[in-house]
Each structure stands twice: as structure tokens, then as C-alpha cells.
């Protein structure tokens, strides 16, 4: 277990010589920085000393077997874990240089900046329109009905759902298919104007065609958002992400650009996992 700490430190940064999309990774600014993050559910330690940096407007995938802490770590980034009684965090998480666990930070405002998409699509039992503008209403982003309509349309377009639902905006969101529901959840999240989008296995409950649509969408969203995606699907991580972090038993084992992780991992555990020898 001791060695894990050292490796976590080694894994914290993507190697400077790495090149993503023709740029050295050094040129890409850091959006999120985690330093020595430990996380506890009551007595159980779920994360051990996680240190890593996530790049702006890139897609980072978290992979690892069930219970490895990848979802837990994802949820520390928008403080969703605060809602769990008995949960406790040590260490620091910075977003744009601001310590998000500092006393002055309001987790409500943080969550407006750091959106989240869940594994199971969870539209409210309201109309499609009401779902999209839920966050807009809460945050009073729109001054009048017209502005609200504009935000709704824009968000649905950005989520690649507008053409499919524009004629039935006031029908129930639950009348949509699973894939459409998940894209609706993405539209709902975009309407709040986040910088960062956290996705917790967003396509694991969807069929291959819907999954492909979501992946295409993620790729499109990368132009404007920093995206972190937790996935169980190796191919998905390889297909969509620029960087991959491999978690095992609450530790960050390896973190590098995705091509490196999938072609030439530094650690034996990583190789075993991605080649399907365990997990």
C-alpha cells in the first residue's frame, strides 16, 4: 500500500513530452487540480491520496474495476459527496486555482459551474421543456419567457436533441427513449452554463446506437467544456478520451494520455486491467 502513494505522485501529471492534437500537453492549461485527496465513508477509506491534474477542454476518462473509487473521486469534484452522511474528505481540490473545499465556497454555486450526468438518465417527471429550464429557473438566468425559450432551444440543440423534440416540448420527458432521456439530461445540464461536465457512466444503460450518439455528442461538447467521464467500457475510454486515469482499490495507479495507457502502460496493473485479465 505504501508504494501506492509514490505511484500516485508519479501518476499525478501527464508526461510533458506527450502530445495531444498536435500540442504539447504543457501548452494546455490545467482546469482541475487534486492534491492528496483522501476520502472516507464513515470509517471506510475510499480514496487514498489522489493527486492529479485535469486539462481544460479535454476529455479525461476514469477507468477501473467496480468499487475502485473512480465515481467517488468524480463526486468530490462537484461536492456531491457532501450529501452523504458520514462522508469526509482530506486534501485539496482546486478548480481554476480556487480551493473548492474552502470555507467561503458555496457548494450550490460550485455545482452550477460543475455539471453532472448520471449513469441512469434521471429526467424529472415533468415536460421536456420544464426539464431543460429547471436549472434556469432555479438560477434565475432568464429575465422573461422569451429568453427562457431561447436557452431551452440552444441547450437542446447543443445536446443534439432539438430536432427530435421541437414539436413536442410540452410532452412528458418520460415519453422519450433511454438515449433521448440521457441527452435531455445533458441539455438540462448545459442550460445551467457549466464549465465542467462530470459524466458517471453516461452510456452504460444504453444500446449501441444511443451510445454512439452520446459519444459523438461528448466529442462535440469538448470544444467548450472540460469533460470527465467515468466508464467501465475500455473501448469507450479509448474512443472518446484524451487522457485516462486508472484507479484501483481507491488509488490512482496510472494517469497519462489515452493512447499511451492503451498501447504502452507503465504499470503492470494497468496492463492487466485493460487487457481484461481482471476486473
Amino acid at each position, binding site marked *: 500500500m505504501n508504494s501506492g502513494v509514490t505511484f500516485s505522485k508519479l501518476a499525478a501529471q501527464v508526461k510533458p513530452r506527450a502530445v495531444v492534437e498536435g500540442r504539447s500537453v504543457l501548452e494546455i492549461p490545467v482546469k482541475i487540480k487534486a492534491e492528496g485527496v483522501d476520502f472516507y465513508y464513515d470509517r471506510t477509506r475510499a480514496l487514498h491520496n489522489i493527486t492529479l491534474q485535469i486539462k481544460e477542454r479535454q476529455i479525461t476518462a476514469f477507468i477501473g474495476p467496480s468499487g475502485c473509487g473512480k465515481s467517488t473521486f468524480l463526486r468530490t469534484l*462537484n461536492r*456531491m459527496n457532501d*450529501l452523504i*452522511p458520514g462522508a469526509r474528505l482530506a486534501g485539496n481540490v482546486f478548480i481554476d486555482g480556487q480551493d473548492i473545499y474552502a470555507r467561503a465556497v458555496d457548494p*450550490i*454555486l460550485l*455545482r*452550477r459551474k460543475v*455539471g*453532472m450526468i*448520471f449513469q*441512469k438518465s*434521471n*429526467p*424529472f*417527471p*415533468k*415536460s421536456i421543456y420544464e426539464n431543460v429550464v*429547471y*436549472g434556469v*429557473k*432555479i*438560477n434565475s438566468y432568464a429575465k422573461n419567457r422569451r429568453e427562457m425559450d431561447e436557452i431551452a432551444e440552444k441547450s437542446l440543440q447543443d445536446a443534439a436533441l432539438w430536432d427530435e423534440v421541437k414539436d413536442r416540448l410540452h410532452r*412528458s420527458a*418520460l415519453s422519450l427513449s433511454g438515449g433521448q432521456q440521457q441527452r435531455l*439530461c445533458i441539455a*438540462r*445540464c448545459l442550460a*445551467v452554463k457549466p464549465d465542467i461536465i462530470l459524466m458517471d457512466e453516461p452510456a452504460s444503460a444504453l444500446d449501441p446506437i444511443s451510445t454512439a450518439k452520446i459519444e459523438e455528442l461528448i466529442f462535440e461538447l469538448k470544444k467548450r467544456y472540460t469533460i470527465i467521464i467515468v466508464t467501465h467500457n475500455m473501448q469507450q475510454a479509448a474512443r472518446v478520451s484524451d487522457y485516462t486515469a486508472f484507479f484501483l482499490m481507491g488509488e490512482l495507479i496510472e494517469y497519462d494520455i489515452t493512447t499511451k495507457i492503451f498501447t504502452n502502460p507503465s504499470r503492470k496493473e494497468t496492463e492487466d486491467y485493460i487487457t481484461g485479465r481482471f476486473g
Partner: protein
Amino acid sequence: MRKRSEVSERLFYLLTGTACLIIVLMIALILGNISIHGRSRLSWEFLTASPEQGMTAGGIFPAIYGTVLLLFLMTVAVVPVGVMVAIYLNEYSSKTSFVYKATRLAVSNLAGVPSIVFGLFGLGFFVKFVGGNIDRLFYGGQLVFGQPAIIWAALTLAVLTMPVVILTTEDTLRSIPNEFREASMALGATKFQTIMRTVLPQALTGILTGGILAVSRGAGEVAPILFTGAAYFLPDLPSKLNSQFMELGYHIYVLSTQSPDVEATKPILYSTVFVLLALTFLLNLTAIVIRSQMRARLRRAA
């Protein structure tokens, strides 16, 4: 060996069946008896007139009016408070906290208190303490609120039916999947916004069910209003919060124990019981209809 097990099988089957039959027979007997005897005096006049000649003639309108008003006031008092308690228990408190455990214990004990004790509590607390102090502070000691009144009876009934509302609301809240709360919080909603916009709209039918159960429970109770506001006979309908009132359950008690002429009262008594039962059924039915309509609407929206 085989034979004997077959016999005991058969016997136990018959025993359980008979037990069921007894229950059905009992309810049929009560309803049959009351609807046969109760129909004789039933007329429009009976429902709209006041009692006359020492309750041996006339109708029961003041008692119907009093009952409906009492239950309305009770509902207004019990539903908001009960729902807020349930929200606190399910949405805010930690299941291991002292407040949670204490409230839990209080709710389940409240449900077990005999109703006559509520009656005495209502007299001591609401009428004498609260009412008496209001009179002392605002009316210079004049007797206004410090006497049995419909408001105190309604509040006493509200305390009695509180556990019903709390428990049904809590069950409903618990049945709402956590993913909706998470979705709302992840969009930057506060806990209060999440409760108001996501949790409560989905809990509406359940809260209504709690209200219905409270009303039908309250409609059947006489002991809590015995000392807190119900009257034997009143020439006028209750018009103010501090008026006394006539009530169907209490009226039945009066008719069956205080009548000067038992034979003349008997048909009136039967009909009054019939009306009380019908009123309770009607209230329940209305609520059930509202509930199923709301469910259908939710399903259409959902």
C-alpha cells in the same frame, strides 16, 4: 401418516377461511342493520332541519354542519404541520441523530395514546392554558377563548391524527427515488428548492392519502371533542372560531344515552348513524377520486 397430515391441512384451511368469513359477516351485519333501520327516517327534511322536542323529532343539520367544519379546521391544522415533520424526518435529519430518534419515538407513542386522554389534554392545554392565556392577554380576563370551542376541538383532533399524516407522508417521501434529488442538487438547486420543485410535487398524492386517512380517523372520534367544544344542543350554527358546535359522533352518543324517550329517539339514532357512515364514505370517496385523477394526470405528464 399421510391421511393425518391431509386432515390437519384441511382443518387449518377451513379455520382460516372461517376467520375471513366472520370478518365479512360482521361488516355486513353492521352495514345491513344500519341501512335497513336507518333509512326509515331519512328525508331531505331530516338532513336540513334542527332537532326538535328534546331530540325526539326534527333533523340533524347542525351536527352535519359542525362535523364538516370541525374536520375542515382539523385538516387545515394537521396537514401542513404533519407534512413538515415528515419532510424534516426524511429529507433533513440524519437517521442516527437524537432529534430523529426522539421524534420517531414521539410519533409512535402519540399514535398509541387513548383518545380520551387527548380529550383531557385538549381541555387542559388548549382550552385552559392557551385559551385562558389569550383571554388574559387580549380580552382582559373576559371569557372568550378560554372555553370549549370548535377551534380547540379541531386542534385536539389534529394532534390525534398527526401520526397518520406524518407516517403516510414519510412513506411517500421515502418512495421517491434519490436520483431525482441528486439530479436537482447537481443542477445547483438548494435543498429547499429541491424539496419544493421536485420532491413535494411527486409526493402530492401520498400527502393527500394522509389527509384522507386523517379525516376518516377524525370523523370517528368522539372522546377528544367531548370536553373541548362539542355541545349537546345549540339553537345556532357555529359562526366563529370560539363557537361551540354539534357533531354527528357526539350527537349519536347523546341520542343513545341522554334521551328522555328511548323509543321515539331510536329511528333518529339509526338515521344519524347512517348519515355519519355515509359522510365518512363520501369524504373518502371524494379523496380517492381526486387521488386517482391526480395519478392519471401525473402519468400523462410523466
